[in-house]
């Protein structure tokens, strides 16, 4: 479902007003600040804002669709030769994976 980030923001704002802060578990909507915080859990390995200078691949500015597919595959456990991502991604739901893929894909404007 293609939607502009502006629209998404309006939608999630309204959702949150209606639902009073849904918890992280099975979150149906995520605010931009929620996604930024979620992305912060990846920086320790992938570099701040996903800019990597190490053997761990960078996420910064990668195509959104590729990031999403990779994460979905990790979550499904269907990636050979993967060390830690299969374990980590089981902790993130579809909505979060979607938002993370978009956040890192659009990280190009961030340093």
């Amino acid at each position, binding site marked *: 479902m293609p939607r502009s*980030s*502006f629209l998404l923001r309006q939608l999630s704002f309204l959702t*949150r007003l209606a639902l009073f*802060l*849904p*918890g*992280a*578990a099975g*979150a149906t909507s*995520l*605010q*931009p*600040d*929620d*996604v*930024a*915080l*979620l*992305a*912060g*859990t990846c*920086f*320790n*390995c*992938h*570099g*701040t*804002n996903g*800019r*990597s*200078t*190490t*053997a*761990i691949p960078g996420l910064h500015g990668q195509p959104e669709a590729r990031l999403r597919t990779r994460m979905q595959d990790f979550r499904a456990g269907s990636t050979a*030769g993967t*060390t*830690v991502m299969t*374990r*980590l991604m*089981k*902790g*993130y739901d579809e909505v979060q994976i979607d938002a993370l893929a978009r*956040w890192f894909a*659009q990280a190009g*404007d*961030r*340093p």
Partner: protein
Amino acid sequence: MTPFSRRHFLSALAAGSATLGCPALVRADGAAGRVVVVGGGFGGATAARYLKRLAPHLQVTLVEPAQRFHTCPFSNLYLAGLRSWDSIGHGYDGLRVAGVEVIHAMADDVDSARRTVRLSTGQSLAWDRLVLSPGVDMRWNALEGYDEAAATLAPHAWKAGPQTQLLRRQMEAMGDGGTFVMTIPDNPFRCPPGPYERAAMVAHYFSRHKPRAKILLLDAKDNFSKKALFLQGWKARYGDMIEWIGLSDDGQVTRVDAGQREVLTAFGQKHRADVLNVIPPQKAGVIAERAGIVDASGWVPVKAESFESRQVAGIYALGDATLAAPMPKSAFAANTQAKVAAAAIVAELTGKAAPVPAYANTCYSLIGPGYGISVAGVYQAEAGRIVEVPGSGGVSPLDGSPDFRAAEARYGDSWYAAMTADIWGQPG
């Protein structure tokens, strides 16, 4: 405090939808006031940096005695001779460039009614929000005979610094055929896999320099983090050099004689060591007690959503000092907790709702060069408690191939570089 800046307003507009992460207008002008952060380790330095990142106009002061912070992570690799002392030290210039005011002093006392903190320099700092990330302090004498003086003979090396260097010198001075004894406390303590990684790293050093040496681990528990992986890795790399004795086999040490380098177990067995490494029971750093945020357990109860103290409003605590189980007392955990607390503080100061908290952890341990293992977990706040997201995380597979172990060793190095750059590096 912060004058409204037209330039910021315009640049915020210009940045527009690009700054999806944080609405720039609020970020630039909303959060006024001062946050004082005590402790420039993993939790504190992350908090200071991310407070500034989220709210550039916030006044953020970091109080830390050390000019250079040496990390416990990779201090075991230093013991092994795989890392130089300098390579695990980090200065505070990166934080200064990011706009954090850094004061090298100890925080001696906290007045939570007046909202001030008194420093060892005699200076007093006022705060609107206070963040304490003092790490652990040792419970001296909780293990009979083990006090500060004893630690100069039988180092704990559980804070990276002179203690770590002392332990390395003792390892160097030990004759081949000597015995290295480590005593390991019951939970909770800093870095659950740390003692077992240390055993491997000491074994790595001995295997090169004193191949007839023995390593004896006396443990107050029967189970420990990544146990099966450690037992497998020790055997694969070091044969029978490492012997682990758990609680059921009389592994619990009840008395230490540091002068004689002797320990006594619960059932009265004596063990003599040539090098004695005592990891004693621990508690939250003492400044947390001064601030009145510690409970009877010796640790700090916090709100799962923000890491604000449950006992004193306006004070946040992070990292090893807190009761955050099932999250372990790890550097990685402290870093994600700090990001949550920074976001919660900025939201509060700007009158917004705090973002949904997100926590994670991964602890890499090195068995030897090219042989790494890990444990990972993802956590969230649920009904006021921290819980592990069901089905997430876990340890490296027991049947991992040599390539898998080599990859995890490499990624452990990457983790260290990324993590320390995220905290102490020059802003990008």
